[in-house]
């Protein structure tokens, strides 16, 4: 008997304002996988990720975590998931350290890496007590990415994680992802970058084609 996959998505479709954004999205994700979602602008990459986080409900189809439907294992699933969206959820009036502290405090679980160490690793060593409005967009993104280092979640959903970070940052994030999947995690990310990662698979979101018209 094969074990149920970490995440499986069956025949997912999403409708908004009576028009179908995408349909028949099928994939499974096992530990060790990196799934890159590709598609043109407006093809629904962010929507798909938000469907996976459970903040949107699909029109058709089912998402299951370890063989269970999301509605049956909501707490476990959300505890095991980390989502970094388009907006990095960084509060401009708080410093990088304070931002990270509340992000970690609201997470279900975290490892014992200290907040200071995480910020050093993402290259914000000297900036931890400066209010975030004084930091650049790329540095905001780095504050959010520091959560990845502290997280214990197996599923990472990253929406355009490479936006506005520099070349070293991209390389660092890729090594982070590589380490995460090596430890048994799984990643779904949307990006237009070409990635050099082991276990990388691609899923192309195609626009929905109306049938019988």
């Amino acid at each position, binding site marked *: 008997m094969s074990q149920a996959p970490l995440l499986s998505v069956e025949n997912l479709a999403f409708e908004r304002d009576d028009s179908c954004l995408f349909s028949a999205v099928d994939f499974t994700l096992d530990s060790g996988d990196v799934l890159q979602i590709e598609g043109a602008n407006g093809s629904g990459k962010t929507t798909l990720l938000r469907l996976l986080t459970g903040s949107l409900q699909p029109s058709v189809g089912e998402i299951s975590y370890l063989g269970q439907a999301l509605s049956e294992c909501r707490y476990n699933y959300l505890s*095991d998931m980390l989502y970094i969206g388009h907006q990095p959820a960084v509060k401009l009036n708080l410093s990088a350290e304070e931002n990270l502290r509340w992000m970690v405090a609201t997470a279900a679980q975290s490892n014992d890496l200290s907040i200071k160490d995480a910020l050093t690793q993402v290259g914000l060593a000297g900036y931890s007590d400066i209010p975030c409005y004084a930091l650049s967009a790329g540095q905001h993104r780095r504050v959010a990415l520091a959560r990845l280092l502290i997280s214990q979640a197996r599923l990472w959903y990253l929406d355009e994680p490479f936006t506005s970070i520099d070349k070293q940052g991209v390389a660092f994030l890729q090594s982070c992802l590589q380490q995460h999947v090596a430890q048994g995690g799984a990643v779904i990310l949307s990006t237009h970058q070409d990635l050099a990662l082991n276990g990388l698979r691609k899923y192309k979101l195609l626009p929905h084609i109306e049938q019988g018209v």
Partner: protein
Amino acid sequence: MLSSAPRKMNSGFVAWLRRDLLLAYRRRGEVASPVVFFLMVSTLIPLGLTPEAAQLEKVAAGMIWIMALLATLLSVDGLFASDYHDGSLEQMLITPQLLPLPILGKVTAHWLTTGLPLTLVSPLLGLMLSLPIDGYLPLLCSLALGSACLSLVGAVGAALTVSLRKGGLLLSLLVMPLYMPVIIFGTATVNAAVDGLNWLPPLAILGALFAASVALCPLAAAGALRVTASN
């Protein structure tokens, strides 16, 4: 190994309360504006109405309550707005905890930074509006309970209107009817005491309103935020 660490039991209440208090501390000037508004308008009343103590004391309780209500209404608008724009509201919606608890944390922070200061400065306004001496304790008690109700009910309105660009007016229209019982029993408490009657019954009703708001408003706000997120 991932996921092997024991899960921290946390409700999210403390994390959000601390964060919002820290944010309020960072934006002290902005957060103080409802209280400044409260003070300013109340100093205008003797100038606009009459400086005669005999006439002022009749309207003092009502005026203080109306100002407190408007000051709360001014500030509750932004309760979820900045979180909505920077993506932290989205993070709140996908935390595994029960959503009403982080919301209750945020509302508590809002009350501590608006309702509580309003309550604490109200005796000063009572003095300016020549509120009779018997009215001070009931004023403090009723404002403390009542302003908590105002914050809680306001949170539901703020949650419903967070995704609208100009939600301010709609928010006022939505929550104003729900604010009416609070202001009726709030002023009744103070007026009863000034008239030498037993002021505990109206205060008890205010307490009941508070208890109902604590139980129901975070749930309603959570529902409203979920609806907002799915659009």
